[in-house]
């Protein structure tokens, strides 16, 4: 039963599946890989053989890992056409939110969180990155001779969030949108999945 796990052909197939499935949220990736692994075990068990020909035929019937994952990516609840607008709005509001201190940035964050295009990890990294960098703004402003008048918290809220945190988070999230999960999604969509 467990022979399949030791078979090099099966191992390499599952490895390819695992990498292709990076586009999926973790929970779904784990579920998919475990279901496919169970399928291979059942199929080899049914065949009563684990020679290379049998193994390759089982994998052939399954289809390529990329094909399986593109089906998973394509079966997201939101069609690609209705996406994109929300993400674009989120990035613009985040990048230019400094015009309306605090409110602009907060609105951008709400839009980012609402979008299914970014993984929770991307959202976390993107927003934290901006916040951490913007924490340095009050220190810098205070160090300047004309930086009196405003306290560190006011400086942070007026300039840090809008001018540093927003644009930086927007830049990271825009990058992830092009090179992260979104590109895989776009590919699957072009294939008509």
């Amino acid at each position, binding site marked *: 039963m467990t022979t399949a796990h030791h078979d090099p052909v099966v191992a390499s197939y599952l490895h390819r599946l695992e990498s292709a499935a990076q586009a999926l949220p973790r929970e779904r990736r784990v*579920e998919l890989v475990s279901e496919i692994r169970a399928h291979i075990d059942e199929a080899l068990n049914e065949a009563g053989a684990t020679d290379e020909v049998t193994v390759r035929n089982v994998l052939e019937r399954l*289809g390529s*890992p990329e094909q399986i994952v593109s089906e998973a990516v394509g079966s997201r609840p939101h069609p690609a056409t209705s996406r994109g607008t929300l993400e674009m709005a989120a990035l613009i509001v985040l990048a230019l939110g400094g015009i309306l201190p605090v409110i602009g940035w907060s609105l951008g964050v709400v839009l980012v969180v609402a979008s299914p295009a970014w993984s929770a990890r991307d959202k976390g990294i993107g927003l934290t990155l901006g916040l951490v960098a913007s924490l340095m703004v009050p220190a810098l402003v205070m160090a300047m001779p004309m930086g009196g008048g405003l306290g560190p918290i006011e400086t942070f809220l007026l300039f840090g969030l809008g001018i540093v945190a927003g644009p930086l988070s927007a830049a990271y999230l825009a990058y992830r949108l092009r090179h992260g999960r979104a590109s895989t999604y776009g590919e699957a969509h072009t294939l008509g999945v």
Partner: protein
Amino acid sequence: MCNMEQGDARNTLTQLRRGTVEYCVLALLREEERYGFDLVRALSRIDGMVVSEGTIYPLLSRLRRDNLVATYWRESDAGPPRRYYRLTEVGQEALADFTAEWIRFRTAVDALLIQESDHDHRAS
């Protein structure tokens, strides 16, 4: 020209398969609860329904997220526990709705196609 028409027909069939396969899954679960491999093999026995068996698993995952099927684990005599799929009430309703629509659709298309082909036969 002829080849192109065949290609179009095949594409149409691919789209039809894509649209109906999830209801075939629901229909297979109507009578009995099944584990993934069993379900996939049963679908594969339907001519032309499954091209790549592996693509059924993402479909099952979506049906579960849409609450049309539910899963649970059951012991197996042949190895590790298996994940079983069963139809939910929502799934039963979706299947009943689709079945009614499908029969209307099929009847209408059949009426046209079969009449047309009779006509062709008479003409030749």
